[in-house]
């Protein structure tokens, strides 16, 4: 509680530094920005955003570096044992543990299972603690958005230990920066190189370099990453490339791999020149000569600022922040802004949040929450007082959206089509009822006070729902508010 007050004071201090005059906002507008830029209101948020106005709130959210984390949250995050584990440490430990299982049998297997389970919980803690408690709500949304955009799957081999590091080193630092930096960071990270197999894509007939590790077995091309790099990460499936372009880009990227033994810095990425295809490539209408790693970097440059990429990203961001079927005119303007700004994510978001399409009351409360939205917003609205994320991770799994558990490279969708189904509604209600009655399978918590909850959510709970609440027994009122159709939307 104390920490929360402190965070508020610091946030207010950050506001004070802004020159713009605060323009008080209507409750509906305040709710809208809290729901869309963040994961919905926590106690006190609504009043605060109304007071400072939505323009200032948006500006504050666009500059997360100005918003300090609450001290207790920062401490808890820093205290996570793997919070600072390097790529090299994680990969080495993973391989050593796998070797120990081979040599040692059951005991080593149990130890390894336990270590991996701990790691899963820790990456869940790092993500969910921030999503629920960080004042940098937009940053949390963008981390989630980009993780899905550049999805890797925790269930695939080495990525079991790398997802947390991937989010921390390749996604989070660039979530509101230049798209080219984000694209480059994912392209060089071992989690992506491993997930989409590029780490072992090599020129046919090339000889492995000493110290190449398991990649030494590779004997030729693997086009998995090259295809998804264009289809999902940049141009989009209708972006105008052919099978030939996929194969040629795969050739450009041969030799992009990782090798803990050959590197010393924070990154284990290496460009293995001996395994790079040095022949000419013809890709997207241009000839690419023998330039080693620079060929791939040039390809990323071109992809990042390609008009098809601008459209693809603009559509996805407009869908995420505005509507399942985003207005075409808005998508066009965002794409123009993206290209004019040299691929600046923050500039695109600025245009998006200032647009009449985003601000229109017609879109208020019309996005159906994903399971992740629903779980995180419930935790925020109730200020759920424990740090045990296991019941939240379990709920996400039951709802079909396990954290870091999307197996395919397209990541999770955020549309109503994808998530509204009969079983989902009743499962959400069951979760809401357990959470609000203090009976999630975690340390017992006091039941949620319906009056406090309703004050937190304000107009987010409609008069119709409030009328139904008034007829229910007191202990069912908070569950009904959280389980209402109103709270299923953002």
């Amino acid at each position, binding site marked *: 509680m104390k920490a929360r007050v402190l965070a508020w004071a610091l946030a207010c201090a950050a506001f004070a530094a802004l020159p713009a005059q605060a323009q008080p906002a209507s409750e509906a507008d305040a709710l809208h920005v809290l729901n869309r830029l963040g994961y919905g209101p926590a106690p006190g948020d609504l009043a605060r955003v109304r007071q400072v106005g939505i323009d200032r709130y948006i500006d504050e959210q666009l500059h997360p570096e100005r918003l300090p984390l609450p001290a207790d949250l920062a401490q808890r995050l820093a205290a996570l044992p793997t919070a600072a584990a390097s790529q090299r440490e994680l990969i080495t430990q993973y391989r050593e543990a796998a070797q120990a299982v081979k040599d040692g049998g059951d005991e080593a297997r149990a130890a390894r299972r336990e270590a991996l389970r701990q790691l899963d919980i820790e990456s869940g803690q790092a993500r969910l603690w921030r999503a629920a408690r960080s004042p940098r709500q937009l940053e949390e949304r963008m981390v989630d958005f980009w993780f899905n955009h550049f999805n890797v799957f925790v269930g695939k081999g080495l990525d079991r230990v790398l997802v947390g590091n991937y989010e921390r080193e390749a996604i989070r630092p660039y979530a509101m920066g230049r798209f080219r930096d984000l694209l480059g960071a994912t392209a060089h990270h071992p989690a992506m190189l491993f997930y989409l197999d590029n780490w072992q894509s090599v020129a046919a007939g090339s000889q492995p370099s000493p110290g190449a590790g398991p990649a030494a077995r590779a004997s030729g091309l693997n086009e998995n990453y090259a295809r998804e790099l264009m289809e999902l990460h940049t141009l989009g499936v209708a972006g105008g490339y052919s099978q030939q372009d996929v194969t040629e880009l795969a050739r450009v990227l041969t030799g992009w791999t990782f090798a803990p033994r050959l590197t010393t810095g924070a990154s284990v990425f290496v460009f293995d020149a001996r395994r790079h295809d040095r022949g000419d490539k013809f890709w997207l209408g241009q000839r690419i000569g023998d330039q080693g790693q620079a060929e791939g970097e040039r390809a990323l440059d071109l992809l990042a600022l390609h008009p098809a990429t601008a459209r693809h990203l603009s559509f996805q961001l407009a869908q995420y922040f505005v509507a399942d079927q985003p207005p075409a005119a808005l998508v066009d303007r965002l794409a123009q802004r993206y290209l004019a700004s040299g691929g600046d994510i923050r500039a695109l978001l600025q245009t998006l949040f200032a647009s009449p399409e985003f601000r229109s009351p017609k879109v208020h409360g019309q996005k159906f929450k994903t399971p992740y939205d629903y779980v995180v917003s419930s935790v925020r609205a109730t200020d759920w007082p424990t740090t045990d994320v296991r019941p939240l991770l379990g709920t996400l799994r039951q709802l079909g959206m396990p954290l870091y558990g999307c197996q395919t490279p397209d990541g999770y969708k955020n549309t109503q089509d994808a998530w*509204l189904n009969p079983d989902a509604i009743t499962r959400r209600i069951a979760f809401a009822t357990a959470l609000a009655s203090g009976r999630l399978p975690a340390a017992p918590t006091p039941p949620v006070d319906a009056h406090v909850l309703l004050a937190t959510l304000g107009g987010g709970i409609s008069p119709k729902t409030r009328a139904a609440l008034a007829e229910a027994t007191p202990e069912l009122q908070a569950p009904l508010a959280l389980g209402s159709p109103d709270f299923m939307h953002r």
Partner: protein
Amino acid sequence: MLRRDLLQLAVQGGAVLLPFGPSAWAAVGESRAAAPPRLVVIFLRGAVDGLSVVVPHADSAYHAARPSIALARPGDDGGVLDLDGRFGLHPALAPLMPLWQAGQLGFVQACGSPDATRSHFDAQDYMESGTPGRKSTADGWLNRLLGVLPPDQAGPAPATRAVSMGPVLPRIYAGRHSVANVPLGAAAGKPTLLDRPQVAEAFGRLYGGDDALSRAFRASRQSHQEVMRSMNGDGLEREMQAASNGAPLPNGFPDNAARLATLMRSDAGVQLAFMDLGGWDTHANQGAASGQLANRLGPLGQGLSAFATRLGPVWEETVVVVMSEFGRTVRQNGNGGTDHGHGNVMWLLGGRVAGGRVHGRWPGLDDAALHEGRDLAVTTDFRQVLVEIGERHLRLQDARMAELFPGFAFRAPGAAQRLMRA
């Protein structure tokens, strides 16, 4: 306690109680003449390597294209199980051989979509919408099928006429007809907090409207009760276990397939079912007789076999289709894997399929025969297979077929190539 609550709920909901226990089976058995035909679709997401499922072992081009991942010839160590002298089944699918021998398992080789996309997501979308190349189709063909199935004489359609196993509804079921989704694992037949009458009543008032959420809420309440009744019938699970010699099934697909069988056998209203499985995108180290792909195929074969056994008499009325968005490259890539390809194999199982045969025109694997010089060509449109099932198994009228697959010019099957028994 649980039982009493269930009864209470059923009475409150105005639902008609179905008979429990062994008598329920008898009821199903006796009314078989009127039993509606069932269709189960299993979708393998990620593009299964069909050339490793129904292996053209007699084709030397196959062995040449896959120096380290070709399955061995029949009789060799780790060799395929010969089907017809030309093709062999992956050894991990051995549990399915009895069905093949009984003529209840068949395949359509070189089957797939006319659209040549190698994007998983577009290809799945097309296969689920049933309109290859057209992205604007809003609904899925399995949902449209609900609209064209002959009405059940027994009365109004039950909430579980179409079910999907899993926490989300797949694209193939998108559309205006209501579909029940059943959670995977043991949760399916378990009561939730909403089964407390007081909670159910309070939320019922909140979800009493005609909006999409309210409709989903009510559909869920109904189907959940039907599923609980079906899954909790006295001694049902025990008898089901006895049907497979008491062997407990491993988690994952075998367990879920067995649960679906339990539901279908005890709930005569289930006519359509869908389940998907991921993990087939074997770009690296897919293995041969053992390895990654074999590890995926094993539980699939085991689950399908258990499903057939547990369905008992209902198996006679059931067709299972196993499909995947496209096949994989004929030549292995640089990592002992395969990349995205085109033609694939479609599996057909059930009491009424013309099994024991590999259907479809086999285009061969010579360079000149390959699609774009790298993939197995498609000689049978996947919709043609589904149309034949629709016509001969689900008893759909030709006129309704155009609603199911708009724009598809299907042809009437010749007697020699029929996929269904007469």
